[in-house]
C-alpha cells in the first residue's frame, strides 16, 4: 500500500484475465486508476535472430509461429516481401486462396476476441457461444491446411494446397450458419443492456489520440479513421475487388466490438465473392532459392491491424534482416492513456479490447480412418513421432528433452 490511500495492485505477469504474461502495475485511488506502468516483453523469443541464420524456406515456418492467431497474416506478408524481392508474380488462383484463408483467419480471430471480451466482463455465455462458432471456422481451416492454427497455406510463389469444389461447398455451408450467428451477436451487442453498460465509454482513445499513438486496426477504425491496408494499399486478390472499410464513431470498447462484428460480416461477403470469382490455373510460381539483393517493406491487414514486415536480402539464400511489426505492438502505445481514470473493473476489458496478441497452444487431434476423433496428449504425440522415425531407421528415443521443454 502506498500513501494517500492509494493502492498499488499488480495485474500480471500471471493473472486470470491475461492470456499472455505482461505486467500492469496499477495505482488505484479508490476504484479509479491513477496510473499504470506497463511491462511487456516476457514473450520475446528471438525469432528475428533465429531467422538470420536460416534459409528463407526455414524462416517461413518460424514466421508462421510469430503469432498463433494471425499465422497466415505473417506468412502472407513474408511471402509477399520475398516474392517482390525475387520479382515473382503469384498466380491469381493462389492470391484468391490466400485471401479466403486470410478472411477465415479474421473470422476466427474476431470470434475469439468477442469471446475473450465476454469473459473479461463476466459474460461467460457469450464466451461459450462465440468459441463454439469459432470451432467451425477452425474446422474449415483444418480442412484447408491440415491444421487448426498453423495451417501453413502459404509458400513462396503461391499456396501449398489447391482448394476444390467440395471444400468450397463446405465453406459456403459454414458461412451461412455463421452469418446467422454473427447477426445475432450484432443484435445482442446493440440490445443487451448490461453488455452496453459495461462496454460504452471505457477505454476511450479519441481520433486524435489514436493517430498520435499510432493505433491500428479495429482500435483505429473504431475511432472513426477509415484506414485499412486492404483499401489503402491493395495487395494480392484485394486489387480485384472493393473492401468496405468498417468504422465507428464511439472510439471506446463498444465501438471496437461493433467494428469487429461488422468486419466479420464483411469477411463473409469477401469469402463468398472470392469463391464465386475464383480464377482457374496454377497455384504456384517458381521462386529461386537465392533471393536477389534488396530491401522491401510490406504492409498488410492482419485481423488485429496493420502488419509490417521489413526484409533485407544480401543475395544469398539466407535473409540479412527480417523485422516484423505485429499490429499489437503499435496498439500498446495508447494503452496507458486509455487506462488512466478508468475503474479497476474496466482495466481487463480495456486491455483486451486492443486484442493483444498471444501465442496459443493448440490441442492436437488425430482423426482415425473411421472418422472418430481422439484428443492426443503431448507424451503420446512424442511416442508417435519416435515410432514414426524408428520405422524409417532413425532412433530418437534416446534424445533427452532440454530442461524446461
Amino acid at each position, binding site marked *: 500500500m502506498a500513501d494517500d490511500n492509494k*493502492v498499488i495492485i499488480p495485474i500480471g505477469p500471471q493473472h486470470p484475465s491475461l492470456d499472455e504474461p505482461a505486467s500492469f502495475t496499477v495505482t488505484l485511488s479508490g476504484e479509479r486508476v491513477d496510473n499504470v506502468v506497463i511491462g511487456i516483453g516476457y514473450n520475446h523469443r528471438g525469432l528475428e535472430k533465429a531467422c538470420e541464420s536460416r534459409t528463407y524456406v526455414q524462416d517461413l515456418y518460424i514466421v508462421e509461429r510469430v503469432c498463433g492467431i494471425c499465422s497466415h497474416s505473417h506468412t502472407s506478408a513474408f511471402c509477399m516481401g520475398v516474392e517482390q524481392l525475387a520479382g515473382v508474380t503469384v498466380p491469381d488462383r493462389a492470391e484468391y486462396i490466400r485471401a479466403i484463408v486470410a478472411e477465415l483467419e479474421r473470422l476466427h480471430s474476431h470470434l475469439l476476441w468477442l469471446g475473450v471480451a465476454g*469473459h473479461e466482463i463476466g459474460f*461467460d*455465455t457469450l464466451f461459450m457461444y462465440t468459441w*463454439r462458432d469459432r470451432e467451425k471456422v477452425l474446422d474449415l481451416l483444418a480442412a484447408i491446411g491440415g491444421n487448426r492454427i498453423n495451417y501453413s497455406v502459404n509458400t513462396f510463389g503461391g499456396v501449398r494446397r489447391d482448394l476444390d469444389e467440395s471444400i468450397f461447398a463446405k465453406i459456403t455451408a459454414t458461412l451461412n450458419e455463421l452469418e446467422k450467428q454473427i447477426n445475432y451477436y450484432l443484435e445482442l451487442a446493440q440490445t*443487451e443492456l*448490461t453488455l452496453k*453498460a459495461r462496454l460504452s465509454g471505457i477505454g476511450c482513445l479519441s481520433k486524435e489520440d489514436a493517430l498520435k499513438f499510432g493505433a491500428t486496426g479495429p482500435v483505429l477504425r473504431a475511432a472513426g479513421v477509415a484506414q485499412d491496408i486492404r483499401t489503402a494499399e491493395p495487395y494480392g486478390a484485394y486489387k480485384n475487388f472493393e473492401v468496405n472499410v468498417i468504422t465507428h464513431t464511439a472510439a471506446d470498447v463498444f465501438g471496437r466490438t461493433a467494428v469487429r462484428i461488422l468486419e466479420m460480416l464483411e469477411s463473409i461477403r469477401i469469402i463468398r465473392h472470392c469463391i464465386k470469382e475464383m480464377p482457374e490455373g496454377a497455384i504456384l510460381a517458381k521462386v529461386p532459392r537465392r533471393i536477389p539483393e534488396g530491401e522491401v517493406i510490406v504492409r498488410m491487414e492482419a485481423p488485429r491491424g496493420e502488419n509490417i514486415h521489413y526484409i533485407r536480402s544480401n543475395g544469398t539464400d539466407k535473409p540479412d534482416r527480417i523485422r516484423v511489426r505485429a499490429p499489437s505492438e503499435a496498439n500498446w502505445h495508447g494503452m496507458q492513456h486509455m487506462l488512466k481514470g478508468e475503474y479497476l473493473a474496466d482495466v*481487463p476489458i480495456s486491455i483486451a479490447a486492443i486484442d493483444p496478441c498471444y501465442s496459443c497452444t493448440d490441442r492436437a487431434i488425430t482423426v482415425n480412418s473411421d472418422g472418430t476423433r481422439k484428443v492426443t496428449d503431448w507424451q503420446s504425440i512424442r511416442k508417435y513421432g519416435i515410432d514414426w522415425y524408428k520405422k524409417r531407421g532413425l532412433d530418437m528415443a534416446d534424445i533427452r528433452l532440454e530442461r524446461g521443454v
Partner: protein
Amino acid sequence: MEVLQMLFKVLLFPGFLFLTSYAFAAEYIDRKLHARMQNRKGPKWYIPFADFFKLIGKQTIIHDDAHAGIIKAMPVVSLAGVATAFIYIPVVGSSAVFSFEGDIIIVLYFLSLPVLTQFLAGWYSRSLYATIGASRVITQMFAYEVPLFMCLLAPSLIANTWSVSGITQYYSEHPLYALINLPAFAVALITVQSKLSKAPFDAPEAETEIVSGPYVEYTGRPLAFFRMSADCEEVVLISLVSAIFLPFLSGNAVIDVILYFVKTLAILFVLTLMRTVTARLRVNQTVTLCWRYLVPAALLQMIVNLIVRGWLA
C-alpha cells in the same frame, strides 16, 4: 418425545441435513442449467459433493500475514448463520421449526452474517485482491440490503404479522393478495441475486479483475465450508422468497413438500437465467441500480401495501 421430535426437525428434516443436501443439489441444478444454457454439457450430479470432499481433503494453507483465527472461524460463522436462519423458514406447509412474532427480522439479520464474514475473511486475508474484494462486498451490501429489507417487509404489512410462517399462512389463505406483491417479488429476485454475489452482481468475486476477491487466500477446509455456506445461503434465500411471495399451499404435507420444491426450483431457474444472460456490472453500476430503481420500487410497494392494509381494515 417432543425433544426428540425437535432434534429431528432441527438436525435432519427440515433442518441442517436437509438444508445441506438440498444446497448441494441446488448447486448441481444451477451449474447444470447454466451449462445447458451456454451450450455446454455441465457437471455430473455428484460433482458438488465431490468438490466439497476434495476440498476437505486438501491442505489448508494460511500465510503468515493473515489472521489464522479469523480465516478459520469465518466459514463456520457464516454456515451457522444461514443454518439458523433456515429454522425460521417454513418448508412443509406454513409452519417453520420455530417461529415467533418478529422472526423475519431475525432471519434477515442472520442472513447478513455471511456477507459480513465474507468481508472479514477478505480483510484479514491481508491480500490486495482480497482487500479490494472485501471493500466491494461491503459496498455492494449497502446497495442491496435496503431494497431487500423493504421488499421482504412489504408483504408483512398486508398480512399484519412479522413472522415468516404467519405471512405464508396469511397469503395461503388469501392467495390473490399475493398478486399485489409482484413488484416486490421482482425486486427481491434481483437483490437476492446481488446478495448471492452472482452475475451480474459478481463484482466482489470478479475472477478477471481481482482473481476471486475475498476467497483468494482460502484453501482446503475453510474454502470447502465457505462454498457450502454459499450454497446453503442460496437455498435459504430462495426458500424465504418462495415462503413470502409464492404462498400456495394445499394442506396435504406430501403435496406441500412437492410444492416447496417446485416453487424454490422455479426461483432457482430464474436466478440461473439471470446470471446466464448478463454481463458483470461494476460496483458503482450496482449501487446506481439499487438506489435509483430498486429502492423507489420497493418504497412504492410499501406505500401501496399500506393503503391496501387500510382499505382491508
